[in-house]
């Protein structure tokens, strides 16, 4: 098992956001977590990235190592887990290229990094045209492209994606998921968090349904897509 989460409990001040969830992601998989607003999806990813402290009793292991022993930057640079946070969070004062270079900050394999820049520009030619432009002057969709682009050049063992499709036109969304699938084929495991359940389940092979901080359903994507409860609650009937 690549990533294994057991009894994960996370609180904001005194309000508990995750009530002891457990799930697993195997090497090479694409797994999604779907759920409504406030279900705790982003919190789960923040806990894995070590941006949030976890309650005692929570267990998170990655390749057999205890995740809680790692600082957030080491999760990226030593374990190879990258995280595309909710709401883009680009560095607006840096250029497009600098945002990409910063995402590759910890990588030592220079040649592979150069190749990954090319991949980003292949998926998003728009970014190449705007390479020297400050990120804050990009349009909303272009910013989303850059947010995903950053993940493509960041750590490569596993990728945590928090709503990567937000704000992208359907055609581009297709490009993004194609690029992610390509990267997955090259060996990057993907954990995707989405409100757009239909799209997430079409992309992933397995899924978990998160409700108010609890995992209430899990299964293969086809099964979840066909599940009447999921249909009713997340797929619009």
């Amino acid at each position, binding site marked *: 098992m690549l990533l294994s989460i057991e009894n994960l409990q996370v609180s904001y001040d005194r309000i508990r956001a995750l009530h002891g969830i457990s799930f697993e992601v195997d090497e090479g998989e694409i797994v999604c977590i779907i759920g409504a607003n406030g279900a705790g999806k982003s919190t789960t990813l923040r806990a894995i990235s070590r*941006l949030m402290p976890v309650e005692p009793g929570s267990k998170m292991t990655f390749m057999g190592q205890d995740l809680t022993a790692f600082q957030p*930057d080491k999760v990226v*640079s030593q374990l190879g887990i*990258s995280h595309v*946070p909710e709401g883009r969070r680009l*560095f607006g*004062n*840096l250029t497009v290229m600098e945002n990409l270079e910063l995402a590759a900050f910890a990588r030592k394999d220079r040649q592979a990094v150069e190749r990954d820049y090319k991949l980003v520009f292949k998926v998003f030619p728009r970014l190449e045209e705007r390479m020297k432009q400050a990120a804050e002057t990009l349009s909303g969709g272009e910013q989303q492209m850059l947010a995903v682009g950053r993940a493509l050049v960041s*750590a490569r063992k596993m990728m945590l994606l928090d709503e990567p499709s937000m704000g992208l036109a359907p055609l581009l969304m297709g490009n993004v998921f194609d690029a992610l699938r390509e990267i997955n084929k090259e060996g990057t495991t993907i954990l995707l968090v989405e409100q757009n359940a239909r799209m997430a389940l079409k992309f992933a092979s397995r899924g978990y349904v998160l409700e108010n901080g609890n995992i209430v359903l899990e299964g293969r994507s086809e099964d979840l897509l066909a599940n009447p409860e999921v249909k009713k609650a997340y797929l619009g009937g």
Partner: protein
Amino acid sequence: MDTFLQNVVNALQWGSFYALIALGYSMVYGVLMLFNFAHGDIFMVGSYIGFFIATGLIGLSTLGIISLPGWVILILTILIAMILTSFVGMLVERIGYRPLRNAPRASAAITGLMIGIIFETANLYLLGASRRKFPEIIDTSIFQIGNVSLTNTKIFIVIISLLFMLALNQFIQHTKWGMAIRAMAYDFTVVPLMGVPVNTIAALTFGLGSALAAAAGVFYGMAYPVLDPYMGIEYGWKSFVAAILGGRGSVIGTVIAGFLMGFLDIFVATYFPSTMRNLISFSIILVILTFRPHGFFGRAYSAQLRL
């Protein structure tokens, strides 16, 4: 006209001190959203370290143990003082501020003030209340251009200070670590997600800022050779104001504001009674800040949300 030019030269020299010190405030504020109120005292510490190194090297030279020309001693003094003081700065960050990274900002501010007082009183205790006279490392020569008198030290101080500022700017604009520093200024919560070690960046920022303050300390000693334990207070506060005026994290803004501070100091004292100097210069700065609350190059918006 001649007094005017003379004043310009002096203002450039003072501005160099303010700008070098202000850069340390500004970088730390930019990266960690923290006012390092111990920074004025780090300038003092740097100046004293420079004093001991210069005195020691000159002493060894007179004893004939080493034989180094004055300019070599000067360069060694500046470099060693910068290096040692940068360690002092990094220690302050490690011991004083890092444990408070997630504490309310007021705790960090108070800690800074306390660390400053510790430096001042430790100096007083260890070295006594008498002032120290900074040794003359190189012979001062005076050039007369018309009626304006320039000394080699003044020219040296202004030029080397400008070179340091330029070097810092190049570092921040054109290196990977400088890029991380700029990213921190924009949104420090996401920086670790890029695999950037935030603690290293914090230490680097403190180290660089303290090194520049030490350079200012040595230059100050060369220009006004009397050191005392409280010298960091007034220059520290004025440089702090310059850092705010320049705009958070902006190297160019801070340098401009530092020189403006130097010009205000000199020119206000020329045309008004010198007791009114700080009153008038700070009033001018208050007016500027009223119209430009984020300083010359500060950003009105910066994303410092929780992730």
